[in-house]
């Protein structure tokens, strides 16, 4: 990155041309290198007490998610109750970070979670495609916040991004951030649709420049979800962004993370890329639904000494 690009951007972009210059001035991603690095970080062996700590931290980082057309108030209530006490048999098990639902389900979840310290996230802005007029997206966001959500997961317009209309994507994020008010804004890049690592890096910086509090990999609704190399790339982006602008942004990989082993690989990756500062639920989240049960089974295995089975944990 050249100094010129930085100085031009120090007060955020003056014109769309500057934004484009900045994003295209970001160094290209070494595809082979980042994949090898991510794979190498996945080979660490984390055992016994370290594993127990990793599991508890991972549980505290889970955004327990249900984003189905078939979600009912009953299911959302059950999920919220599970978020508060993931393992009813073990009071030492920490609660998860947040519950993540569709805007229509926000009031239902809010009633259960009120005052508990567990956050309530809602997807908004015409999730998962993002193909809706800005007004609709903003109304969606305001609705979710009014219903009690304190975190908003918005999707970027991948169509606009891929067409090179960075200014439109930027302005949308700024507008949604404004509409979200006090709520934390997570920006979903949908990396599976961005096609290249270079695009993921650009989208990460674009989202952070526009004011994102979190950058999130995926909706979980397309074929390719969070992968270790993409998450590593985004972790590098938030690290470099803080170095340059002094503001810390969180990362949330979502979709496809199903096992404790995978989760621990991500924790190792954070530690090796960004250091301790990001090893906290305020700065890193797992967007997942089935991951929690695997974490609970592993936790039970460590505390009881024998293998746990899915029959002993709730489905939702």
């Amino acid at each position, binding site marked *: 990155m050249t100094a010129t690009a930085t100085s031009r951007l120090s007060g955020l972009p003056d014109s769309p041309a500057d934004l484009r210059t900045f994003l295209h001035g970001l160094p290209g991603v070494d595809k082979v290198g980042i994949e090898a690095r991510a794979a190498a970080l996945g080979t660490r062996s984390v055992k016994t007490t370290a594993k127990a700590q990793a599991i508890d931290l991972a549980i505290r980082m889970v955004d327990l998610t249900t984003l189905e057309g078939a979600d009912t108030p009953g299911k959302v209530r059950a999920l919220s109750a599970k978020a508060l006490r993931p393992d009813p048999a073990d009071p030492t098990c920490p609660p998860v970070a947040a519950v993540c639902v569709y805007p229509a389900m926000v009031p239902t979840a809010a009633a259960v979670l009120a005052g508990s310290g567990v956050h309530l996230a809602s997807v908004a802005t015409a999730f998962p495609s993002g193909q809706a007029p800005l007004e609709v997206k903003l109304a969606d966001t305001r609705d979710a916040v009014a219903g009690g959500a304190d975190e908003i997961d918005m999707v970027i317009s991948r169509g606009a991004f891929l067409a090179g209309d960075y200014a439109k994507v930027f302005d949308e994020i700024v507008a949604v951030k404004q509409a979200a008010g006090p709520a934390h804004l997570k920006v979903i890049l949908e990396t599976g649709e961005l096609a290249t690592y270079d695009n993921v890096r650009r989208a990460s910086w674009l989202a952070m420049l526009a004011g994102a509090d979190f950058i999130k990999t995926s909706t979980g609704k397309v074929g390719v979800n969070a992968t270790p190399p993409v998450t590593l790339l985004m972790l590098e982006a938030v690290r470099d962004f803080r170095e340059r602008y002094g503001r810390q942004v969180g990362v949330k990989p979502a979709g496809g993370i199903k096992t404790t082993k995978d989760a621990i690989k991500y924790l190792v990756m954070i530690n090796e890329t960004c250091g301790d500062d990001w090893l906290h639920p305020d700065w890193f989240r797992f967007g997942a639904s089935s991951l929690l049960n695997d974490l609970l089974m592993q936790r039970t295995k460590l505390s009881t000494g*024998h*293998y746990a*089975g899915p029959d002993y944990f709730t489905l939702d």
Partner: protein
Amino acid sequence: MPKSATPSRLAVRKTYKLYVAGKFPRSESGRTYLVDGDNVALASRKDARDAVVAARAAQPGWAGATAYNRGQVLYRIAEMLEARRAEFKSLGVAGAEVDAAVDRWVWYAGWSDKIAQVAGGANPVAGPYFNISAPEPTGVVGVIAPGSLLGLVSVVAPAVVTGNTVVVVASNPQAAITLGEVLATSDVPGGVVNVLTGRAAEIAPWLASHDDVNALDLSGVDDTELATELERAAAGTLKRVLRPTSGVDYTEDPGTGPMTALLEIKTVWHPKGF
């Protein structure tokens, strides 16, 4: 020895690997041991864990297959076993025993669509209800198998014919893994039968205490102390435990007992119209 005129071939020596989820992986631990000069994978508790995951994943599909289909698959096993007769004989299994093992698969294949009528049925009740009992598979069964090929077949076949899936700890590794090769080429879905080779005393306690194993067959455990310990561990999750009281003669007619021991009876009360 005089050198022969033609160069001799290099020996192709076989490593007997585990049979888990329809594949033949080495032990996760990387360990092997020698049995009669053959390299055999020495399974660890994590192999047992992986095998249980595979068995659990395969169970609904296998139990959901029609009884007729399961019978056909079992008959196919008999066909493939028959074709490998020579290989089993070279492993030291008597010809008569291979024959008996083939016949046992055929016998159990025939039972697949008949056991429900024998173990279940319509019950007469004093009320306006249809009352029907139907046997259902217990689920994932941990099997500590006896050493002989016929013994192995005689504990695996009755478990899987009704829709259970099994994790077998085999004590005669070469014959057991060769049977695994028979199963792998017999339309048996991966994960329905998983074969681990190694020390029963090391692996069996993990199966006995595993929350996701529904039953435990201790037919191959000769050490009474170990058997008692396994029964105690199994009690923690209320597993069904089969522990044959004395030496079983596997050449005899097994009867329906081995099948019904791994079935749960579901009874349905259905209101009758007036």
